[in-house]
């Protein structure tokens, strides 16, 4: 509860701050301070199990430590994001504090959808996450790409909201006890009535849209490409992970009991997502767009948690969220500072900026899923969960083959950085501060630590 309340409040604070603070840099520090406090408060709630305010939940929210841990992960990543990209947020436009405010609202939405237990909260939460994102996407107002991305995102987002609502409606109508509470909605694994099925499919579709799983992923590349890179980084990592978490919780609690009946759909989703994501990423020349596609590919792996729906899978999901977010934030942070977003723009970075290059390599290796990195552990968990599930081993094999393809495009950047020479001696990256480098190093150390000893994270999930 703390997380939700205080992020909302802090959002307001940032908003009002915008009116009074003239300096461009202050909001950043304000935001970092606020987020740190909120993170601590959330930890407090985790340990004590007691929020600061006793609010009657009425079965709307569910604060078990699992969910709170995820909030921690999400907020932690956001903090890192602030630290790494604060300066870049300032560069986007004039209304710096508003951007931060919006991000805080999104965070409260994140907290909502990772603790919801009523479809209403899910709906509102998703909207709270989406609407500010539409704006952030369009926040680079002079840039037509940004505008276009915003509109595309908005139209399709609204459309998928419609789909979702229809689904919810059918669920409400279909469940005998007419409720929006996901825990009570369905029990037993009797073949589901048509209305429930319809609702399920529609929800599945809209959620797949939000997590950009094929064939509902089409908005992703354009939006990620068009949006200002900082915000791309944010929405491609934290938001996406959060929505995924919501996705899994929804289907686990609401339809877990009849898992087998809808597994086929997930299988199709996974196969399509992995294939399209990886295949399309191969040919991209712009790193930004390539990362957009790769995020689709990663979603394909995360979907395994939905496919398996076991405790292993859920741990895996949290681990994956952390690993993926860390690595992506890192690589995006570096990308933002690059002058040229094409892969050739990275040529010879290894000589000019060794620290950047090495850390970037760690991030990319993690995304590829090379052992010793968190990326490997998370993929490993996912595969284990999938194999444990027993069916569709071919899908697992297919997945690892796709992972091999992913090596293909991730390593193109590594090759560019270390093994290709850039003829001109212009600066490839701008304002690389020591602090920035240190943060990158810390991030990569985190990644490797998680890769060596994932229990650092997974142990928090239950107690």
């Amino acid at each position, binding site marked *: 509860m703390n997380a939700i309340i205080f992020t909302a409040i802090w959002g307001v604070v940032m908003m009002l701050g915008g009116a009074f603070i003239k300096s461009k840099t202050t909001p950043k520090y304000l935001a970092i301070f606020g987020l740190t406090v909120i993170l601590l408060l959330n930890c407090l709630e985790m340990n004590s199990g007691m929020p600061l305010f006793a609010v009657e939940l009425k079965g709307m929210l569910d604060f078990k430590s699992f969910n709170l841990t995820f909030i921690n992960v999400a907020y932690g990543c956001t903090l890192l994001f602030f630290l790494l990209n604060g300066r870049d947020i300032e560069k986007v436009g004039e209304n710096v504090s508003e951007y931060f405010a919006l991000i805080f609202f999104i965070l409260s939405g994140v907290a909502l959808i990772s603790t919801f237990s009523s479809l*209403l909260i899910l*709906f*509102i939460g998703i*909207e709270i996450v989406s*609407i500010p994102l*539409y*704006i952030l996407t*369009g926040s680079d*107002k*002079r840039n*037509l*790409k940004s*505008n*276009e*991305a*915003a*509109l*595309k995102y*908005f*139209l399709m987002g*609204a*459309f998928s*909201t*419609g789909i979702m*609502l*229809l689904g*919810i*409606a*059918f669920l*409400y*109508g279909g469940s*005998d*006890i*007419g*409720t*929006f509470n996901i825990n009570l909605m369905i029990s037993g694994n009797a073949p589901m009535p048509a209305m429930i099925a319809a609702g399920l499919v529609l929800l599945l579709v809209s959620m797949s849209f939000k997590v950009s799983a094929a064939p509902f992923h089409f908005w992703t*590349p*354009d939006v990620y*490409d*068009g949006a200002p890179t900082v915000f791309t980084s944010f929405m491609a990592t934290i938001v996406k992970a959060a929505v995924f978490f919501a996705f899994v919780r929804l289907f686990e609690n609401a339809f877990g009991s009849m898992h087998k009946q809808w597994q086929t759909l997930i299988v199709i989703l996974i196969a399509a997502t992995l294939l399209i994501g990886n295949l399309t990423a191969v040919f991209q020349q712009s790193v930004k767009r390539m990362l957009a596609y790769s995020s689709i590919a990663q979603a394909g792996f995360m979907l395994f948690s939905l496919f398996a729906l076991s405790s292993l899978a859920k741990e895996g999901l949290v681990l994956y969220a952390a690993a993926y977010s860390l690595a992506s934030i890192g690589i995006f942070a570096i990308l933002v500072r690059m002058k040229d977003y094409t892969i050739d723009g990275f040529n010879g970075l290894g000589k000019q900026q060794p620290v950047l290059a090495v850390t970037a390599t760690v991030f990319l290796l993690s995304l590829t899923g090379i052992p010793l990195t968190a990326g490997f552990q998370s993929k490993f968990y996912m595969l284990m969960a999938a194999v444990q599930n027993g069916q569709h081993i071919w899908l697992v094999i297919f997945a690892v083959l796709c992972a091999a393809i992913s090596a293909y495009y991730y390593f193109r950047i590594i090759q560019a950085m270390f093994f290709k020479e850039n003829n001109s001696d212009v600066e490839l990256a701008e304002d690389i501060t020591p602090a920035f480098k240190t943060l990158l190093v810390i991030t990569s150390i985190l990644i490797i630590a998680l890769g060596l000893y994932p229990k650092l994270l997974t142990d928090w999930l239950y107690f």
Partner: protein
Amino acid sequence: MEIKWYIGLAVALFCTGVVGVLTRRNSIIIFMCIELMLNAVNLLLVAFSKMHAASEIGQSMPSVVSDGQIFVFFIMVVAAAEVSVGLAIIVMLYRNTHSVDVNFLNRLKN
């Protein structure tokens, strides 16, 4: 009245909205079609709530009935917020391109 008629009506309206989204190019109209979809859903929800009202569950606990209608209320709320943002975005785009035609939006592709 059987619920299926309401379902039929709502789904029909919804699909009309979908068709609109698919066939029109004017982003405002597309947006309106989406609103149409939302309304279809609202109607459906209300109908369902009244369906539950008819069932014995509804008799025993009236909250089941009101849930649906409250939900509709929230949908309207959200829709309003969405509209404000959406129109703002459309206007911004119009400022920059003097068009609201989604087909002109293809700087981002492949």
